[in-house]
């Protein structure tokens, strides 16, 4: 019997020092080796994790548990990555693209552990409490998903998919009655509109690739405006995702942070100054162009008259530094921390306004479900047989059940009987 290989974030969601991603199932070793070189079964190693297209996602501690000696009793791979939502989300969506892999349902690891006899009574008791917490957590997530625009959208999908299936079933189950003969144009229109909307939601989350990878925030200003000090001060207040890392040039100091759920890459363009050295000049040009292309710039001056040869763009922030030396209230100080809270609040709200509202409620697991539902709906394009189209619609509904609930055949029949006069 073949089971799917399942995966999920096993540690608490949200930012944390380390995130544990667990993969379990018959295909766990084979599949995971597409993202990183696995250590020998029973061992652990530090490995680079790559997306399927070869992009480096993170460095992680990788543990491989052979079948029979893992939590679930199946082959298990654990990835201990940096605990940033962006990294976790990127790794999860890479896993979702591996053949035979799917996100775990609530409590599914536990269920498998139970089925394989890996737990004893007291463990089961303990897990029941845990599960209760998990269900509660799921409920909260569901509530979040169901509030607002997405819920309304999902509701229209539900109605349209039920309707399209009802049209098909009317022609199949009641073909000897007075029902319309060719319902396919309407079915295709309904399915097409749901497809379009799912694509739109996914494209928001495509936009959230940027959210995932972080907003680039450049700190620009003349030398000695206090840019490095500012970064260091901010570092003290936030969790760094990746410790100080050399930038694309030696002159750009780049640090990744989680700004209350919004990942940002903060960099200092220390190198913006006149230079005669050709190599350094190239570096400076690069730094300027990167600052100009950043999502947001923080202009930092110690003297309001300072010239900065980088264009101020809509939404950029400006501050005067060295508040510890000058008495005016408006200045911030990296040294005393004066005004830093305000700066971070400004920064967060400036960035938050750029995130489409639905993105925050579509989690990677749900994105996976949307993509699979879309896959089923896409297939319908090329299918003529109504009974097969009905199956693909049902497949899509099953995948979307997190958003629109499972509907059984009764709701389809309700629609048939209220639309058509059945009963010859």
């Amino acid at each position, binding site marked *: 019997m073949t089971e799917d290989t399942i995966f999920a974030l096993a540690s608490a969601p949200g930012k944390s020092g380390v995130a544990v991603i667990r993969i379990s199932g018959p295909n766990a070793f084979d599949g995971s080796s597409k993202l990183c070189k696995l250590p020998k079964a029973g061992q652990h190693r530090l490995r680079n994790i790559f997306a399927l297209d070869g992009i480096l996602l993170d460095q992680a501690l990788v543990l491989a548990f052979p079948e029979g000696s893992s939590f679930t009793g199946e082959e298990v791979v654990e990835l201990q990555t940096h605990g940033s939502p962006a990294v976790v989300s990127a790794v999860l969506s890479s896993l979702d693209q591996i053949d035979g892999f799917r996100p775990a*349902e609530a409590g*599914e690891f536990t269920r498998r552990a*139970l089925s394989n006899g890996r737990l*004893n009574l007291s463990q*089961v008791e303990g897990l029941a409490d845990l599960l209760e917490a998990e269900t509660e957590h799921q409920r909260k997530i569901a509530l979040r998903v169901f509030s607002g625009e997405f819920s309304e959208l999902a509701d229209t999908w539900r109605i349209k998919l039920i309707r399209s299936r009802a049209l098909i079933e009317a022609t*199949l189950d009641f073909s000897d009655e007075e029902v319309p003969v060719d319902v396919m144009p309407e079915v295709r229109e309904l399915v097409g509109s749901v497809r379009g909307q799912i694509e739109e939601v996914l494209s928001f989350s495509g936009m959230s690739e940027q959210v995932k990878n972080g907003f680039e925030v450049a700190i620009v200003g003349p030398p000695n405006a206090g840019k490095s000090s500012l970064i260091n001060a901010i570092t003290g207040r936030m969790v760094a995702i990746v410790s100080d890392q050399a930038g694309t040039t030696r002159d750009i100091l780049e640090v990744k942070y989680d700004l209350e759920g919004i990942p940002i890459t903060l960099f200092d363009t220390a190198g913006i100054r006149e230079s005669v050295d050709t190599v350094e000049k190239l570096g400076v040009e690069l730094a300027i162009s990167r600052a100009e292309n950043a999502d947001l710039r923080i202009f930092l001056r110690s003297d309001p008259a300072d010239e900065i040869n980088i264009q101020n763009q809509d939404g950029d922030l400006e501050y005067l530094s060295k508040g510890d030396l000058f008495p005016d209230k408006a200045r911030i100080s990296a040294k005393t921390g004066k005004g830093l809270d305000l700066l971070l609040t400004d920064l967060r709200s400036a960035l938050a306004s750029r995130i489409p509202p639905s993105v925050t409620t579509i989690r990677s697991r749900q994105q996976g479900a949307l993509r699979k539902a879309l896959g089923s709906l896409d297939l319908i394009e090329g299918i003529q047989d*109504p009974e097969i189209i009905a199956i693909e619609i049902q497949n899509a509904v099953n995948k979307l059940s997190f958003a629109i609930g499972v509907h059984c055949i009764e709701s389809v029949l309700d629609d048939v009987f209220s639309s058509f006069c059945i*009963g*010859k």
Partner: protein
Amino acid sequence: MKQSEFDTVVVGAGHAGCEAAFAAARMGCKTALVSLKVTDIGTLSCNPAMGGLGKGHLVKEIDALDGVMGRLSDLSGIQFRLLNRRKGPAVRGPRAQIDRALYKRNAVNFLQVQENLSFLEGEVVDLIQSNHSVRGIRLADGSEIRAPKTILTTGTFLKGIIHIGDRSMEAGRLGDKASVRLGDRLRDYGLSFGRLKTGTPPRLNSNTINWNILEMQPGDADPAMLSFMNRAPVVDQVSCGITHTNEKTHSIIRDNLDRSAMYGGMIDGVGPRYCPSIEDKVVRFAEKESHQIFLEPEGLTSQTVYPNGISTSLPEEVQFDYVRSIVGLEDVEILQPGYAVEYDYVDPRGLNRDLSLRDIEGLHLAGQINGTTGYEEAAAQGLVAGLACAAWVQGKAPLGLDRRNSYIGVMIDDLIVRGVSEPYRMFTSRAENRLLLRSDNADQRLTPLGRKAGCVEERRWRAFSEKARQIDGINEILSNLSVSPQAALKAGITVAKDGKKRTGRELLAFPDVGLSELTKVAPDLCGFPAQITEQAENDAVYLHYIERQEKHNTSLQSDYAVKIPEAFDYNVVPGLSGELTEKLTKARPGSLGEMSNIEGITPAAMTAVLLQIKRNSIKDAV
């Protein structure tokens, strides 16, 4: 006091009762079939047709288990049509117009030659009860028929009331007595009841219909039979007429709505939405200017015509007026007015999978009494109950029918897990595995199971084995075939020139490729009978989808197979909402798979229940 002993006693000789009694007898059980009179056997009390969409699947499945409905229909069929003939094989449904009198006569003939089966005439007034079990029945004359297993198939007889306009009378069907006492007994068992209704149209005199001006619908040129054992009709074939209601009909009905039993507030029962009365149609679909009516002859020698589509509970004189407003029926004579029947049904959620009661031993309920409608639905339940009783008497394992292998399994599952809110009828859309559960492969799916259970007799088993041998033969040729794109193109089959060799099965899966195209690359495919090649083609149509669905099914299997104990207490499951607890306590699913079919069940709820089951079992073991 007269007393007789049987293994199984079946009360009621309608389609549920017949199929139950014949099934138990085929298994070798000494069986009694009890009804008021022998002419009750196999009565088609509603429309004179058998099979159709979804229902045709049920008949073929009953037939695959060697039941009588398919064979009786073929012997008595006066018109055969394969519905959805031009659509995919999964949704094709064979249907036959039936000569009512012939059907009854053939049923009596079957009865006479069926070993182990006795027909007893009598009015059943009560059950023989001892402790918590039923031990047979008591008749009005005081005599007793004792048996360890009793099957009640009393149809609409529980508190049945007939309505014709503002007149109503206590009865099941016209001319029969209601079984009030039996109903009281069932109430004592703590079963819950609901109330349903159904309607019939006025019956018309064929000689007074102006057939010449009506559109006629003949049967198929190439009739599809309802039994795997038959190839062609045996009696003369007829056409049905088609006519329509019109504005005048509708206005007569509208003007008299308050005199309709259904609209006058005389009826509380819930009627089937797929079989509305003409009053309902006129009110609910007011924008429709006309409704289609099929004029179905009730037999070759009968002068009665069943006008399908105008069931009613209006007073007789209104029926007379509106019927005569219809084209072709201007001078028609009504032989029997239409009427509505209201009756009690037992909430089937109180039954086990074999349709036995939960708390009383030895009693099974089958057919319309469980909230279903239709001869086929009733017969399928009768079969399930009959086979279960015989298996119990003989100490054998019950036949394993479930949602994955049969429409019968789908229906039983729907009834006992979800219950009914209107008369339950089978639709192909109820079967999740519709592509697998075709009417043409019902024998492949079920005959071996039936043989193992002991209900398939030698004659059918031989015929089936021969067919299975040929299907294996054709499948072997198809899967061993390896055709290059060049060879395929040469034979006129359009494939991509990708250098990939394809099996015969893969080629058949292409639209527009049939077995005849394949014979050019594989001459040994010639010579198979039509029914064999047709099934090979049908199997291939859904090849990819069936593979995917099977994969999906296996991936669900391990969790879904987990049984939920009868006495499982949902109240103690942590994390289960009050609403779900209540729902599950009522539905009492037998396994996690059944549980997953209940609306509103989440994966988390399933895990919570699984955990509790494990916890209980570990505690029990300690």
